[in-house]
């Protein structure tokens, strides 16, 4: 089962990938760690963010790890480099 997910790239991740947004087929049952590994395959340049990045899945922060994630068509996943608002 795959889900067509909208992946958003912000700040340095947008510069590294050259994209702000793209629709990517991703496994419907996965983990945030696996998700990051798949995004790294798609955009090896994202390795520059390794260990200093989290994801936001449906607008909730998710640290990279083993926790189970269920994705559906139309879901939004964002690559979130270190925050610097304020």
């Amino acid at each position, binding site marked *: 089962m795959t889900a067509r997910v909208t992946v*958003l790239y*912000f*700040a*340095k991740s947008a510069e590294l990938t050259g994209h702000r947004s793209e629709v990517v087929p991703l496994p419907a049952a996965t983990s945030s760690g696996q998700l990051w590994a798949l995004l790294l395959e798609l955009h090896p340049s994202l390795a520059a963010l390794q260990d*200093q*990045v*989290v994801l*936001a899945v449906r*607008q909730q*922060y998710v*640290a990279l790890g083993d926790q189970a994630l269920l994705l559906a068509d139309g879901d939004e996943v*964002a690559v*979130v*480099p*270190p*925050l*610097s*608002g*304020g």
Partner: protein
Amino acid sequence: MSSREEVGGAMEPSRDLIGLSPEPLSIERVYSSAVSPSCGAVALFIGTTREHFEGRRVIRLEYEAYEPMVQSELSAVCRDIRARWPMVKHICIQHRLGLVPVAEASVAIAISSPHRCEAQEAVGYCINALKASAPIWKKEVYESEESKWKENPECGWSGNS
């Protein structure tokens, strides 16, 4: 705090105002949206663009945000503030996006409360929480046109946290 002091406050519902905009921030408007006849205090914090960072001349900042998630994260910050300081009346948090020239405001927070301590503490908490959790990013652009994505030490996954 006697409950009688709340007569006025009870008539006017509390407001959480969260805004993102490329326009210059009006400090008067941020202040006005927090002031309340039931309160004696408004505390504000304004973050501005510094012209130097570690000896390099900064010419501007560029901000971008994951806008709907900023709204949800800052709404959660407002809920936290109300849980910790129940006397807080209005909360106004405005963040500018896009280019912010030197000496202009990138963020403005105003919070009202009947007495001043709550408003002052809540503003201090709010700016820390915003830096830790609002999905907003800033790039510092130097005189040389080199640039650097900044990282808040308050952010749990930054290199300098």
